[in-house]
């Protein structure tokens, strides 16, 4: 009986300490009728609560892929797509980005042309720049299929 109790106590300790510590998810979805290569001008809409300049990181990564990209709160009139994002942060010794979702939308009706999401918990945390890279790489990889 005592051995069983000790075994279960150990099992609980393992479950409590390991669950949720190293989880990675990275997914991307692209509308099959959309050709991301045909887009030229994009605008990364800055999230009002973003103090980490994620919009600038996304804009830089898109520029490096050959797109003409603006960013900020004001949206230019002539656009092929608007890029929105949601960043979720957590604290574990230091702040880290838990999840990043990037969506490329039709500027006319906000329809999601493509969307990608990465989720990394504390033990496999990545820098904001790496998270942006991973999400965009997955979107364009999915689009190139």
């Amino acid at each position, binding site marked *: 009986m005592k051995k069983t109790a000790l075994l*279960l106590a150990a099992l609980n300790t393992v479950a409590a300490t390991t669950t949720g510590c190293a989880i990675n998810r990275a997914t991307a979805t692209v*509308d099959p*009728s959309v050709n991301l290569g045909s887009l030229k001008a994009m605008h990364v809409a800055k999230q009002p609560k973003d103090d980490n300049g994620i919009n600038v990181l996304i804009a830089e990564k898109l520029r490096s892929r050959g797109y003409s990209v603006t960013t900020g709160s004001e949206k230019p009139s002539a656009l092929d797509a608007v890029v929105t994002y949601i960043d979720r942060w957590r604290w574990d010794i230091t702040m880290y980005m838990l999840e990043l979702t990037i969506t490329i939308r039709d500027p006319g009706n906000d329809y*999601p042309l493509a969307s990608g999401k990465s989720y990394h918990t504390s033990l496999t945390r990545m820098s904001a720049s790496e998270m942006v890279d991973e999400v965009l790489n997955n979107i364009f990889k999915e689009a190139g299929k």
Partner: protein
Amino acid sequence: MSTTLYGRVTGILIVTAVVGLSGCASTATREAMLVGAPATRNYPYSVSVQTRGGTETSATTGSTVSNEELKAAVEGSIMQSKLFKSVVQGGTGDYEITVIVTQLTKPVFGASFTVEMEAGWALTKASDKAVVLRKVVKSAHTATLDDAIVGATRMRIAVEGAARKNIAQGLQAIADLGALDADARSERGQAPAPTPAAALTYPRTLSGQDIAAHFASYPSIEARRGEAKPTRQAPFTLRIRGDGTVERSCPRCFTPSASGSMVVKQDDAQVCFDWRRVPYPASGCFKLVQTSATDFQMRGVGFETVINYSVAP
């Protein structure tokens, strides 16, 4: 004594281990996401459905919507509503519906769980891949302690409700298309059908599903008091947010800005407002009546003042 104590501790640990390791979140089911209301149109075409962006439920994700269950729910809803003649598999139909889940926002804890869902709905014609519809559909559903005491069950109910409303709005958007009808009639050698607006008779009271789709299409409304002298009509702007909150801007009112909540009671075909700290417009439930192609009236089910507004054709 010692044996009894160990027995109790072991029992508690077994329960803790089972709950901790197996997780208690369950996936949203196709049955709970089904929309059964008959569609306002019946297209004489076959359609296939593909879903993307869904995730499998696990102990770490909590209750979510999987692609498989969402696809089955959309297909089942099409069959029940008879929106299309038949549902086929593998993209071999006349048309193809693509549903892409882009956001499923869930609270971490609370007594009431409000889940918000955003999905892109696309309808393409299979023969030439022409895009007939592209629309972003946002929906939200709140599950309370009345729905379930257990948090995981309450969360699943909220997720299923948000998905069900999303499917209802998505299919309604497809039913509202005129192009498919014209296409079908021309293929049968018939004259073009009259426009949907001309085919309707007024006044008509909107169903719960119609009300939800209507406010999803018109999130900003210029309204005014209906039964008053023109000088006392106090025009106001009603802004409907995706999270179930509403804002009212009324420059001529004593309190120019106000906020509150809005709920569409689909079963009762009513829209209910709860305004904070302002008497105008009245808090309460309304029937939505369309009086012409572009004019609408919110008629209180109690003593609420009638509200009139128009939308762009």
